[in-house]
């Protein structure tokens, strides 16, 4: 491997909430790590200087529980396309869900994913392994082998487990190896065939509904099983205020549960679906205004650990049908950083808190060695122009999936450079023009 370039990021405004840094400082990078902050290490000779004047320098973003569609659904997107998009969006670590085809229940699939992202050489991809064999919900997967192959945790994605006994055993077995279980809280028998939040909008449109209880029943049961087994469970993409309250209460009682919230649930509600627009078809569904407000509050009261994009890219045909017949999910990598920062503009939290929700906090919750700018840390860095604006549309989106309810919205903040392991993996056209 050739020796890595030494990079000097000059005159940028550093923000690293994890290390309480919020000031103008230079960053020096060597051998894939941060060699110095503020002052150059002795004898540092930069091979490349990045002029970050007027720009903000933060740790590279971490986006958990994404669909990259490869292997198995390459007509929607590929690891190559989504890693390029992630790099251009300031994301340096993507964590992919196990419901690929084949599912991630053998080390071979993890190896394939690693091979694919390293081939592209952009954002790194970490995998979550299957909780049960084939995600069928009946037989435990070979979790020890999955962990040895590099899985950061296990999950049954959005597929149901056969019984409470299987859930209990899966939690126990995962805990044996110190693996976090990522749970999509959903009591399948209550949500089956539904595609809109149960409430006035679903009633008016006559669309089969998913009650709030499909989430709260699952969370209540799983918290009880976490207390019983001692496993660490992370609830992926919580959507209801009542489930959030239960999780907040459990955390207060030192029960090892955590949760995140996905961007669309912080901005949109079931009322947005009233025109049958399939871009608002999400699973779980968009909830009420009151849920949205409580989720926003949960970002600062300690109950929600981090923010995700819930990235689910689709080909156009997947959304070209009557609302209930369309595939759920939004393409979210492109808009993750600006929509998270915009929460600060709306007064939900401070800018530094918003940045923490994409960097230091997911790193801490998921136990990853990324997401900070300390000397000696892995040099994953995102450099963005805080005042630059752009409009979300097919041309500006770099993901293969163009399915977004935020089309036409103006985004503020644009990524100029992204570095992963000390290598520049993205430079914007605007940066070249300087």
């Amino acid at each position, binding site marked *: 491997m050739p020796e890595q370039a030494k990079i000097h990021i000059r005159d940028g405004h550093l923000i690293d909430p994890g290390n309480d840094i919020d000031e103008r400082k230079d960053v020096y990078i060597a051998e894939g790590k941060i060699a110095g902050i503020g002052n150059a290490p002795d004898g540092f000779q930069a091979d490349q200087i990045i002029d970050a004047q007027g720009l903000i320098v933060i740790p590279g973003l971490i986006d958990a529980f994404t669909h990259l569609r490869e292997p198995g659904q390459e007509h929607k997107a590929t690891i190559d396309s989504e890693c390029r998009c992630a790099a251009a969006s300031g994301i340096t670590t993507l964590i992919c869900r196990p419901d690929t085809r084949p599912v991630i229940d053998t080390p071979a699939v993890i190896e394939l994913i690693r091979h694919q992202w390293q081939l592209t050489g952009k954002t790194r991809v970490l995998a979550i392994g299957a909780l049960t064999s084939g995600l069928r919900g009946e037989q435990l997967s070979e979790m020890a082998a999955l962990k040895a192959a590099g899985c950061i945790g296990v999950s049954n994605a959005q597929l149901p487990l056969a019984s409470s006994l299987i859930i209990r055993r899966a939690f126990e077995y995962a805990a044996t190896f110190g693996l976090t279980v990522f749970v999509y809280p959903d009591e399948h028998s209550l949500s089956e065939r539904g595609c809109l939040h149960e409430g006035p909008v679903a*009633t008016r449109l*006559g669309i089969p509904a998913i009650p709030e209880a499909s989430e709260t029943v699952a969370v209540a049961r799983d918290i009880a099983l976490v207390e019983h087994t001692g496993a660490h469970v992370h609830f992926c993409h919580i959507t209801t205020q009542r489930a959030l309250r239960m999780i907040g209460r459990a955390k207060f009682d030192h029960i090892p549960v955590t949760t995140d919230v996905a961007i669309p649930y912080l901005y949109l509600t079931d009322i947005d679906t009233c025109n049958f627009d399939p871009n608002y078809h999400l699973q779980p569904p968009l909830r009420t205004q009151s849920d949205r407000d409580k989720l926003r509050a949960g970002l600062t009261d300690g109950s929600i650990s981090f923010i995700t994009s819930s990235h689910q890219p689709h080909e156009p045909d997947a959304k070209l049908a009557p609302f209930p017949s369309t595939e759920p999910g939004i393409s979210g990598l492109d808009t993750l950083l600006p929509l998270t920062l915009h929460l600060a503009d709306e007064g939900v939290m401070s800018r530094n808190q918003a940045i923490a929700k994409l960097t230091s906090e997911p790193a801490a919750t998921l136990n990853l060695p990324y997401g900070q700018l300390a000397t000696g840390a892995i040099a994953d860095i995102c450099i963005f122009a805080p005042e630059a604006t752009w409009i979300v549309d097919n041309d500006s989106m770099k993901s293969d999936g163009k399915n977004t309810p935020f089309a036409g919205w103006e985004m503020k903040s644009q990524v100029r450079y992204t570095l992963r392991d000390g290598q520049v993996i993205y430079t914007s056209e605007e940066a070249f023009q300087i």
Partner: protein
Amino acid sequence: MSRTSLQIRPDGRLRHFLSIEGLNPTLLREILDTAESFAGVTAQSVKKVPLLRGKTIVNLFFEPSTRTRTTFELAAKRLSADVLNINIDASSTSKGETLLDTLRNLEAMHVDMFVTRNSVSGTSHFIASHVQPHVSVINAGDGRHSHPTQAMLDIFTIRREKGDDFGRLTVAIVGDISHSRVARSQINALNLLNTGEIRVIAPRTLLPANIEAMGVRVHHNLRDGLRDADVVISLRLQRERMQGATLPGEHEYYRLYGLTADNLSIAKPDVTVMHPGPINRGVEMDSHVADGAHSVILQQVTNGIAVRMAVMSMAMQQNKGEADA
């Protein structure tokens, strides 16, 4: 695009007929008045008018239907249109051609209007969003969402029975509101006409969440709901709902919610009894009620033809006008 602009032209006239929501009372009454003029035609010995001569109408049904499809076909023929009936088994489309492909293929045959029925809510809205500018879409039922021509023929029937002042009427709808597109459209139409009181009567398992928000009063007890009602509409109970988790069985349903001469006696003496059909006799209502003096169930079917003629001609006439201009 909003639903209002999708089914109504900039000049306020009908472009598609997808749902009662988004219509205004003026347009609604115009449909009723036009239907009234066609009601005369259907009673004549020569039952045809040449309004849609040379036009091709496709009945595109993804769900089985006898009554609705037949009355749409008759309505089209009495307007002198050419009619093509296409019944597609929903399961076969899920394996092969997409809905949009089916639509494009039919459009290539120069169709002027689609009358569509589908078990998925929002289908007619989807079709209307994707047809060519000269093609109109009439919703003949989409999932649980909407069945606007049924609601219009019910309103038409009520108006003929009770007169035009809906403000003094109490209308009670009994049965499976939750799965009913008919009930949703009826409620919307009755509200547009400022109906005095709209009640729904059902056990909680057959009522959708927040139904009060649609502007109805909820009753779980049949006799409470029927008290002094001017119009009682009974809804069909699908067989698959009669057992399992929704209802314990048809016996208890009939005992609690079946219309009988006895419990109807609590309504107004001149109460009108309606049903969109087909009836499960001895489940939703007793045969004496279905065939009794208060029942207008067969008039509903007859009126369906005139109402569908009205809607079809109104949507198509605009197209003709555009072509001339």
